[in-house]
């Protein structure tokens, strides 16, 4: 079919054509960027933590009447309380493994240190999240040791919360090891924090840091585990249960701890939390943003499709007589159908071209304002195809109605 008559007809209602094209262009620009944002957020939520997340829960509690700053002997006193707690939790039915920990992946409570390769180095090679726990922590978390050895009970030191002395040995994540010693084995190497040295004795495959949502940047998996039992005003225990026993153990943990020592506060809401809940909270804003963007996209696509249906229906109504004439002169139904489909394709095509420019522009602007990464071309291509398809789908109903106009219309006065 020649496009000439279509173009000639389009020229007769320029404003309508421009409006549909503009609407498609804007929709493409916004939907591409919104879907890009959704994609980023989904990627983030799906990042692995490196730990065995099933059957894991965390108890956070605060001592009453015992403070780290109470003076000499305070740390020793707290340490005995902590060890009693660990012992109590380990003896609970259904519990497989327990370890004290200052924090854990996704918990949003972090302790970070700048790590250097020499004691004199001024700018740290990397900033690592420091996890402190005893020799059972790696097993409890289910982290995979890929090189070197795990901590033994002899490595573990009790330390106050404000004590930031490095331990003689640490275990680092693979990502940190590669950044610190590219292409070499990190085992046996010294690293420094604030001029104080420690030896890397083991490397774990993957371990997510505890803050994952700082200014929308992804963490880089730089994590270090120190063999320290933290004895501060608060304490935290990671508990691994046997399959199917988690709920029961979570319910019983509070009472068991109170039975051994009532001088404590375990918050009713946040004192005992499953890892699933911690994960849910950590990514809440990402999920929220993705849902919001998805809803806006959906509404926008529906409005645009409905707009195309509305305007095309109007045009069909307006051109009833001309369609009748064409039919009377021998045009088949399919020709009329194609006429409207091609017309829409041309309008949408124009809109899509403008839309690509707008989409890229919007992405560049977001990059400059909100530290957004560059949008891969794939998103724009998919967006183009999607909008052209949307246009075709929307135009089908009015176009089919047009194709059913009887040739007899030609003989009727308006």
């Amino acid at each position, binding site marked *: 079919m020649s496009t000439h008559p279509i173009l000639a007809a389009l020229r007769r209602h320029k404003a*309508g054509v421009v409006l549909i094209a503009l609407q498609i262009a804007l929709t493409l620009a916004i939907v591409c960027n919104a879907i890009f944002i959704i994609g980023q957020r989904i990627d983030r939520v799906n990042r692995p933590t490196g730990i065995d997340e099933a059957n894991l829960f965390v108890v956070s509690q605060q001592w*009453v009447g015992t403070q*780290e700053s109470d003076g000499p002997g305070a740390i020793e006193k707290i340490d005995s309380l902590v060890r009693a707690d660990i012992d109590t939790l380990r003896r609970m039915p259904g519990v497989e493994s327990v370890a004290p920990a200052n924090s854990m992946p996704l918990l949003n409570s972090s302790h970070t240190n700048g790590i250097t390769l020499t004691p004199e180095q001024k700018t740290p090679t990397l900033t690592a999240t420091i996890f402190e726990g005893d020799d059972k922590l790696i097993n409890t978390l289910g982290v995979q040791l890929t090189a070197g050895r795990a901590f033994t009970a002899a490595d573990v030191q009790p330390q106050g919360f*404000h004590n930031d002395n490095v331990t003689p040995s640490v275990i680092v994540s693979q990502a940190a090891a590669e950044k610190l010693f590219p292409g070499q084995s990190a085992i046996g190497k010294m690293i420094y924090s604030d001029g104080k040295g420690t030896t890397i004795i083991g490397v774990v495959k993957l371990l997510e840091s505890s803050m994952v949502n700082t200014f929308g940047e992804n963490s880089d998996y730089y994590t270090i585990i120190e063999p320290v039992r933290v004895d501060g005003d608060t304490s935290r225990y990671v508990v691994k249960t046997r399959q199917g026993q988690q709920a029961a153990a979570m319910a019983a943990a509070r009472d068991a701890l109170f039975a051994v020592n009532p001088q404590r506060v375990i918050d009713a809401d946040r004192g005992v939390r499953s890892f699933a809940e911690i994960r849910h909270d950590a990514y809440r804003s990402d999920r929220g943003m993705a849902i919001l*963007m998805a809803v806006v996209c959906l509404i926008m696509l529906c*409005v645009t499709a409905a707009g195309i249906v*509305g*305007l095309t229906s109007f045009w069909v109504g*307006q051109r009833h007589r001309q369609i009748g004439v064409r039919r009377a002169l021998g045009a088949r139904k399919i020709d009329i159908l194609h006429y409207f489909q091609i017309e829409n394709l041309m309008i949408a095509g124009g809109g899509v071209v403008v839309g690509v420019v707008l989409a890229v522009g919007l992405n560049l602007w977001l990059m400059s304002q909100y530290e957004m990464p560059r949008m891969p071309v794939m998103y724009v291509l998919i967006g183009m195809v999607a909008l052209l398809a949307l246009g075709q789908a929307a135009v089908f109903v009015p176009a089919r109605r047009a194709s059913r106009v009887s040739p007899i219309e030609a003989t009727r006065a308006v």
Partner: protein
Amino acid sequence: MFSYYLELALRSLKRSPGLTLLMVLAIGFGVSASMTTYSVFRAVSGDPIPWKSSQLFVPQIDMWGPTGRSADGEPPNALDYIDAVALMRDHRAKLQSASYRVAPTVQVPGSGRHPVSVSGHAVYSEFFPMLDVPFAYGSGWAVDADTNQAAIVVISGELNRKMFNGQNSVGKMLEIAGKDYQIVGVLGKWDPQPRFYDVVDTGGFDTNSDDVFIPFTRAIAMGMSNAGNLSCNNNPAEASFAGLQRSTCIWIEYMAELDDAAAVQKYREYLNGYALTQKSAGRFNWAPNNRLRDIPQFLDDQHVVPSDTKVSLMVALGLLIVCLVNTVGLLLAKFLRRSSEIGVRRALGAPQAAIYAQFLTEAGIVGLAGGVVGLVLTGVGVFSVGLVLPKDIAALAHINFSLLLLTLVVAVVSAVLAGLYPTFRASRVQPAWQLKSN
């Protein structure tokens, strides 16, 4: 005349219910998406103390030097103990207070009830008058209580409800972290968001209420640990809370009230002089790099409004624009279909202004209907963001009269704007042409 246009408009809208419904829904969705995201934006970008925010300043001192600055040369956003206490001692502002976050356990002595963990702040006496903190009972404390490290406490109305059933508890005792404190004041409703006096620890927003305020000097004397953020450029030499106080680790917030430009200028000079003194004393070996920002500037500098919130608002406004373009197209189609009617009216003597009035009335009615749909959808939207957004932010987004009014106004104004071009086209219909072609 208006009622006549109203009647014409309603009749016209009824003639093509599908098209009308489409326009109303488009405007309704567009407006409600914008209003929903705006309700969140409004909540997080608000001024927490509008009558005074430009007189409250946050001083920043560069105690870390070049190695501790951010990429753009900014000094740390909080103070270490040494500098905070020195600034308090010099007392150069009209009112000022250093503060740090504490999270002690509290219980009513002899009540037999189990202690609970609360969040609170260690502050100086001037904290309360400086921030215009409202009291339900009692008051803050006098300067000598700071000096004497008095064992007194101001509690929140919330904690007072929980512990004392909302009765006047001034004079009663409260056990905080195992020690007895006498209650001197109970706050009224006070939950400023953003939490401008402690942006560093909260990131701006906090769903927990701040339940206890105790004298800073007392908290330090009792070794009450900092429960907020702690950042160190160099780790403390001694491993204890006392060691922390001798380190350059930052964990203390600071605020000063400066009432006019001259006072601000004087305070800037004072900070500069302070940094120079520290330099000559050998503590800093770099040029002064201080900042003195008022609350709005500090909140902006700390990026208190999440970029997600801004991007959402922008995308939602984009949706509104798409909906409006859609409405322009549909109104155009609708108006031009009535060319013959316009022709007749014009031929019978109606001026262009009458055509404008008629069609803009019609657009306005579409907008109003869209606004009503938008009201309902905004209600659904604000409720829904509460389910999906982070709790501290979602808790702030709420519907009030001004939001509802704004929804209606935006809907009507945008529909009338959308109707301008179609109306212009309609007003230019040539009567002769229309009459002839019929």
